[in-house]
């Protein structure tokens, strides 16, 4: 394969990965944004966070409980969690896209980044 052909093939594969990543990001931010808006409006209209002053849940089960009781702050937190997870999912989706494009160098790179992210998250948890 000539160098030019190789370059063209790279460009084409890159475009497909880009479409997948961009779609993923759009879904992530629209979803997170909507959930945050709903929670924030509920909070401002009712003036009630659902929790004692200046407190809010920080564990997933407590937040889930709060959402079931339609507590405004818990709903906001779900939106924030979705927002935080979006870039991590973005790496995951690129990995899938690179697998699909058989671009194995970049599959390895994506997996490596995901592992490092997981490690840093666990380390951070230990440190607190």
């Amino acid at each position, binding site marked *: 394969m000539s160098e030019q052909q190789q*370059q063209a093939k*790279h*460009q084409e594969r*890159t*475009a497909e*990965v*880009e479409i997948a*990543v*961009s779609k993923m*990001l*759009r879904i*992530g*931010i629209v979803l*997170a*944004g909507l959930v*945050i*808006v709903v*929670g*924030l409006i509920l*909070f*401002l209209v009712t*003036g009630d*966070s659902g929790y004692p002053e200046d407190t*809010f849940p*920080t*564990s997933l089960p407590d937040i889930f409980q709060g959402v079931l009781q339609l507590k405004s*702050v818990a709903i*906001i*937190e779900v*939106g*924030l*969690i979705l*927002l*935080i*997870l*979006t*870039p*991590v999912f*973005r*790496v995951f989706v*690129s990995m899938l896209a690179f697998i699909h494009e058989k671009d194995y*160098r*970049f599959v390895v*790179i*994506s997996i*490596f*980044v995901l592992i*490092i*992210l997981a*490690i*840093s*998250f666990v*380390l*951070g*948890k230990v*440190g*607190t």
Partner: protein
Amino acid sequence: MTAIVIEIFLIAILAGIVGSILGLGGGIVVTPALTLLFGVDINHAIGASLISVIATSSGSAVAYIRDRITNVRVGMFLEIATTVGAITGAFLAALIAPNFLYFIFALLLLYSAYAMVKKGKEEIPVNVPQHPVAEKLGLGGEYYDKALGRKITYNVDRVYEGFGVMYGAGVVSGLLGIGSGSFKVMAMDVFMKMPLKVSTATSNFMMGVTAAASAGIYFLRGDIIPVISAPVALGVLVGATIGARIMQRLKSKTIRKLFIPIMIYIAFQMIYQGWRG
């Protein structure tokens, strides 16, 4: 309460615009605004700032990737360096006082401000060789520059140096809990000789990943206050969408003019921090 929420929302729009144009993620506006104007304490301000970095990153990337400004392959490749750097930084923070590092990073920033001033007149990098590693990984790219009205094809040079600076950027974010976009832009613009617009867009794209790891930790600690972070997130998402449109129509020279003083400001802030200990 409603008034404060709206005020934070409006400031966050500005943060999103600035962050997406310069590739700095918006924390540079959000942290001082929250601490100085609203009296939010620093840990909670950093928590909200991490949210703003993630929102700028994902919000602007939608447009930048669609318009092919972001170099996704370069971003993914350099994320190895930033994520490993972030872990190193977290370890260093527990082991040593960061004073000395502040000075080194400040000098690095000042050097790169100088390098940027030197190429102030250059709109697009010319005569850049394709580094062998860049060749192998297919890192070079092309995009349509809306300000110049033509397609720009570019090569990527000095991959090792860029990778090293990116590692430093990761260390900084691990140490200080910030996105360190200025280092990311510097690595791509000054060292790897990529076009400035591609550098800021790709920096933004990358920042979300490292910020997400720290944000998870801040969230569990209770440092991400929902009522403050919600208007920050929403405002920044709106601002980043607007900023991504504005940036494409700006000349690189103009973006550089905005970027250089901010870099010098961050450098002096770091020297001050290091001095004070």
